[in-house]
C-alpha cells in the first residue's frame, strides 16, 4: 500500500494533494500493465476504472464509418485515460488502446466515488484536479476543432 501511495502522490494529477487524501485514494488503487495493442477499455463498456498512466503511450480512438478507428488524442506518462467515470451513466464513450507497453495505476472508480461521498473534502480536492484536467482537454479540443493548420501557412 505504501508503494501505491508514493506512486499516486507522485503522479502529475495528484502532486501536492494532502497525504491523508492520497492514502484514502490509494486504497482504491492497483498497478496494471498492458501490452501494445491491448485495450484499456472499449466504447460502451462500464467506466469502472480510472487509469493514471505511469509509462507508455495510449491512443484514444473513436470508430468512424468508412475511416476506421480515428485517433483523436494520445495520453502518456502523467496523463489520465478517460474521464467519463466522473459522472453517470459511468460508461466509456471511446476506445483506449495501448500503442506501446504501458503501465498505469488503476483506481476503482466506484471505490473512489464512494469515498468522496463520505468525505467531501477528499471529493472536493480530487474533483478540482479532474476539473482542471477537463478544462485543459476542452481547450485542447477547441484548438483541434479550429483546424488551424488547414489554411494559411
Amino acid at each position, binding site marked *: 500500500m505504501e508503494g501505491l501511495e508514493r506512486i499516486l502522490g507522485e503522479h*502529475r494529477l495528484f502532486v501536492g494533494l494532502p497525504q491523508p487524501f492520497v492514502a484514502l485514494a490509494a486504497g482504491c488503487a492497483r498497478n496494471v500493465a498492458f501490452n501494445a495493442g491491448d485495450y484499456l477499455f472499449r466504447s460502451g463498456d462500464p467506466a469502472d476504472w480510472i487509469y493514471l498512466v505511469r509509462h507508455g503511450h495510449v491512443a484514444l480512438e473513436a470508430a468512424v464509418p468508412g475511416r*476506421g478507428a480515428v485517433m483523436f*488524442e*494520445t495520453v502518456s506518462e502523467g496523463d489520465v485515460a478517460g474521464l467519463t467515470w466522473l459522472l453517470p451513466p459511468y460508461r466509456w464513450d471511446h476506445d483506449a*488502446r495501448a500503442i506501446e507497453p504501458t503501465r498505469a495505476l488503476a483506481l476503482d472508480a466506484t471505490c473512489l466515488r464512494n469515498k468522496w461521498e463520505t468525505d467531501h473534502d477528499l471529493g472536493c480536492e480530487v474533483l478540482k484536479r479532474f476539473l482542471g484536467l477537463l478544462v485543459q482537454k476542452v481547450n*485542447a479540443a477547441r*484548438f483541434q476543432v479550429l483546424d*488551424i*493548420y488547414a489554411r494559411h501557412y
Partner: protein
Amino acid sequence: MPAITEPLAPAEGDPMLPRIVRVGKRARDHNGTVTLTLESADEMPLPTFRPGQFTMLYVFGVGEIPVSISGDAADETCLVQTVRAVGAVSQAVTELQPGDTLGLRRPFGTAWPLEDLNGRDVVIVAGGLGLAPLRSVIYHVLANRARFGNVALLYGARNPADILFRSQLEMWRKRLDVQLDVMVDHADSSWHGRVGAVTLLLPRLAVDAARATALVCGPEVMMRFVAAGLSDTGIPDSSIWVSLERNMECAIGLCGHCQVEGLFVCKDGPVLRYDRVRRLMGVKEL
C-alpha cells in the same frame, strides 16, 4: 520558364529592386510545400540573413510574395526558402525547377533574438509551415548546443502526412540533448506518435521558466494559444517571441499593407516580443 541572368540591381542597392537568382535544387516536402535552394546567378555573393528574416520572391510575369528563409544562416553559398502553394504567386514559386531564375529582394525584417538565448533554456514551438522560419534557429542552436541550457522543440501539424521536414525531425529526435515532441491534430491507427493539441505539451516542458526564452511560429491563432500557455507555465511575456505574418508588399514600411496599428510587420517584425503584440493578437480581424 526562360532564364534571365542579367542582374536588375546590386545586392545592397535599392531595396525595391530585385536581383536575379537561380533555383539550384527543388525538394518537394508534402501537400504543395516546396523547399527551394537558391543560388547566385551572377558573380555577386548571395545576401546573408539572420534567422527569422524573410525575402521577397518575384516570379516574372506573375508577382511577388514574402517567403521565410528556412536554411542555415551559417551557409552563405545558398539561400533555402520554403513555400506552400496557397495562391497564384506561391503556386508559381512552387512550380519553379532547377535552373529557373526569379527575382529576389534582400532579406528584410527583424530576426529571432539569438544572442539573448545564450545561457538560457530555449523553447521552440512551431505549428504547420511555421517550422520553416524556425529551422534556421534550430540549426544555430544545435550547432552551438553547449551555449544553451535545456532545449525543447515542440511541433504541431494537422496530421502525419502534413509534417514538415519529417526526416530531419526524426534525426533531431535521436539527439539526447533536445526534448523533441511532435503532436498531430488527427491520425489513423498507423500513427504511433502523439495526437492532440500542441498546447497539451506545454505543461510538460522540462525547462526552468524563469530562465527560459520561447520562440513561437505558426498560424496566428496557434501562436495566441501557445503564447498564453507558455505564459501560464511561468515564462515571462517579455521572454516569449512570435513571428507575425501579414500581407507584406514593399517590405520596407512604406506601403502600409502590413500595418497593424502602429506596427509595420515587414519592418518592425515579423519577429516581435509577445508583450508588445499580445493585445493586438487578441483583436478580432486585425
